[in-house]
Each structure stands twice: as structure tokens, then as C-alpha cells.
């Protein structure tokens, strides 16, 4: 953009100076002289951004489908977001999800416990063509206010190494079976917390009736130090209950044998 602007102003300066310089001879010089043929279209007459590329009909279709319902800016803070109805909807969606998953409940404010602040994070999800396809608001906990030993104990959670995946792929190729993939929506909201964690009201959605109450978390939230571990434990318990065996070396691998076959 910036480069375009400088180009544009340079060209504008040129076009201004040309008819301006032979000012004293303007009477005998025919006006036609200034209508010089230009090779390229003057930049100051181009309306849209040059980097935006060519619009095709199929792209426009997708664009139109969402354009009216989505905000194209990412608000910097919650006060900015509260002025935009699209973002309010997005925030309400997130809070409804908490309700559905029974993430927290209101309790009277406990003494001598740290109450952790919460914060909204706003992101626009882009599709493959780079147009905004979803406004996503996520309430996160400011985990750096947690105190070790009180608000959390263990935080480490095993993750898979890419080499392990490569071996799995090689094994799948050898055994000639297909691999499938799926993901869990808002995984952390599924996992129960062992520790007692209290958080503040979400900014912008404070309830004045319960101003001396805080939320006690039953399940993990994004930003909590122990959230990934809680989720791993939740998932592995579920799998172990259902007859899976944990891999001895790679703890993120689960096996279930039927007889002698995989």
C-alpha cells in the first residue's frame, strides 16, 4: 500500500508540473499538447487497492454469502467490540458454549484466594481465499496470575513427536489401512479441573446483581496453566475406560487389539 501511495504522488506531481511549466507560452501553444497519450492508466484514478487482485465470480459468491453478517475488523479490546453487533453475537456464542458445557458457576467471593482476570480475544477466521468467514471471540484466563501449588500443580502434558506420526504412517502403509482424522471442538471445555480456580466476570458481561460473586471453574478454560494436562487426562481416561491400552513409549498413542489384530 505504502509503495503505491508514493508512486501515486510522484505521478501526480509529474502531471501537475507538465502543464504548469510552459505557463508563459500558454497562449500560442495549442491545448491539445497536454493531452498526451499515456501508456498506463493514471494511478490516481484507480479506485481499489492494486494488491487486491482479480475478483472472480466464484470468489464473489462466497464473499457475498457472509459479507453482511460479519465484521471485517478485529477489535483491540472489549469496549471496541461492544460497539459492534457482530462481535456481541460472537461473544454471546462463546458464553453459551460455556453454559452448555457447564464450565462454571457463580459463588460468593472467597477470601484469601486469588481471583484470576479474564480477557476477550478477538480473531477473524479466514477461509482459503482469504476472506473473513467467521468472527470468533474467545474468553481466556490470564494464566500468569496463577500461583503454583495453589491454583495449579502439574502442567506438563505429553504431545506427540512428528517422528512418531511418521512411524504410524509407515505402519499404516505396511498394514494397508486408511488413517482418519478428527478434532474435538473446544477441547479444553470438556475437561474437569482438580484444583479450585476462581475467575472474574467476563469483561463487558458483568452482572451487577452478583457483583460480590465470582465464577468457580468446574472445567478448564483457555489460558489456564493446567488446561492442556486436564484435557489429556480427560481424554486418556475416556479411552482407557473403553478398552484402549496406552503406548509404553509414546504416551499419546492408544491401542486396542481385537484378538491379535489391530
Amino acid at each position: 500500500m505504502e509503495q503505491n501511495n508514493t508512486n501515486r504522488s510522484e505521478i501526480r506531481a509529474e502531471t501537475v508540473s507538465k502543464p504548469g511549466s510552459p505557463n508563459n507560452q500558454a497562449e500560442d501553444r495549442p491545448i491539445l499538447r497536454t493531452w498526451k497519450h499515456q501508456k498506463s492508466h493514471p494511478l490516481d484514478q484507480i479506485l481499489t487497492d492494486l494488491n487486491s487482485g482479480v475478483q472472480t465470480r466464484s470468489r464473489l459468491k462466497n464473499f457475498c454469502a457472509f459479507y453482511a453478517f460479519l465484521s471485517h475488523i478485529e477489535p483491540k479490546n472489549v469496549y471496541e467490540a461492544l460497539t459492534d453487533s457482530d462481535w456481541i453475537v460472537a461473544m454471546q456464542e462463546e458464553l453459551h458454549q460455556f453454559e452448555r458445557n457447564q464450565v462454571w458457576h457463580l459463588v460468593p467471593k472467597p477470601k484469601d484466594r486469588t481471583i484470576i482476570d479474564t480477557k476477550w480475544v478477538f480473531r477473524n477466521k479466514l477461509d482459503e481465499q482469504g476472506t473473513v468467514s467467521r468472527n470468533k471471540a474467545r474468553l481466556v484466563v490470564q494464566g500468569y496470575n496463577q500461583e503454583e501449588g495453589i491454583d495449579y500443580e502439574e502442567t506438563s502434558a505429553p504431545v506427540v513427536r512428528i517422528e512418531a506420526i511418521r512411524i504410524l504412517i509407515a505402519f499404516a502403509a505396511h498394514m494397508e489401512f486408511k488413517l482418519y482424522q478428527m478434532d474435538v471442538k473446544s477441547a479444553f471445555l470438556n475437561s474437569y479441573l482438580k484444583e479450585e480456580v476462581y475467575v472474574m466476570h467476563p469483561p463487558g458481561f458483568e452482572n451487577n446483581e452478583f457483583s460480590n460473586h465470582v465464577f468457580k471453574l468446574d472445567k478448564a478454560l483457555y489460558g489456564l496453566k493446567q488446561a492442556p494436562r486436564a484435557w489429556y487426562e480427560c481424554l486418556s481416561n475416556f479411552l482407557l475406560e473403553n478398552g484402549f491400552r496406552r503406548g509404553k513409549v509414546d504416551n499419546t498413542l492408544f491401542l486396542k487389539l481385537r484378538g491379535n489384530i489391530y
Partner: protein
Amino acid sequence: MIVQVYADDIIFGATYENLCNEFSKMMKSEFEMSMMGELNFFLGLQIMQTSNGIMIHQQKYIKELLKKFSMDSSKPIDTPISPSTKLVMDDGSSSIEERTYRGMIGSLLYLTASRPDIVFRVGLCARFQSKPK
């Protein structure tokens, strides 16, 4: 039945198709899931499953890397390094930023998952990381 877990992503496969269906049904009853279908992209690794076998590559990752280190217009070279290359401390030339250099090495180390052929030169560069020139 094999299940591999990475945070909220799950890969699974079994020698019998119906085991897979059973598993996905079981998971859907417990958690809110979205089925993404056949495995084709995981942790920057692109996977193609064909009847002849499985192919893996990291083309997308490589392109992003080139863009990140603004080398997308650099000239491709067939032989990345001569085996007799010796890296020495050389105070003649000006230093480059150490942080970027280390970032490059780290990114290239991840790339060795699908490109074992670059292991030697990446390892060689990784041995000399202080005051890169």
C-alpha cells in the same frame, strides 16, 4: 485399532473399517467432535493416501518458510552443500542476526521429518550458532 492424540487432534486407523466407524461414534457420543475425514494434513505434514501407498511431504511448510525468511525469490540449487565444506570462525565479514539464524536452523530441523537428505547440512550449520556471519 490405533489412536494417536495431539491435543485436540486425533488420528486413528484400523485394519477393519467398521472399527473406525465404531470409534468415531463412540467419540461423538462423549465429546463435541468434528469429523475431518481422511488424514491429509497434520502438524505441517501433508499426507496423500493412495492405493499404492502413502506419501508425505511438507510443501506448504517449505513455502511458508521461504516467505518468512524472505527467500521466496532465491535461486534453487540442487546440491545444498559440498561435503568438504568447513565452517570456521571468520572475523572478516559482518555479523548477521543470531536470532534469525537460530530460527532458520530450528525450522529446517523440523523439515527433516520429510527431508532426511538435508540432515547433514542442517546439522553442520547447527554446530556453529554463535556469531553467524
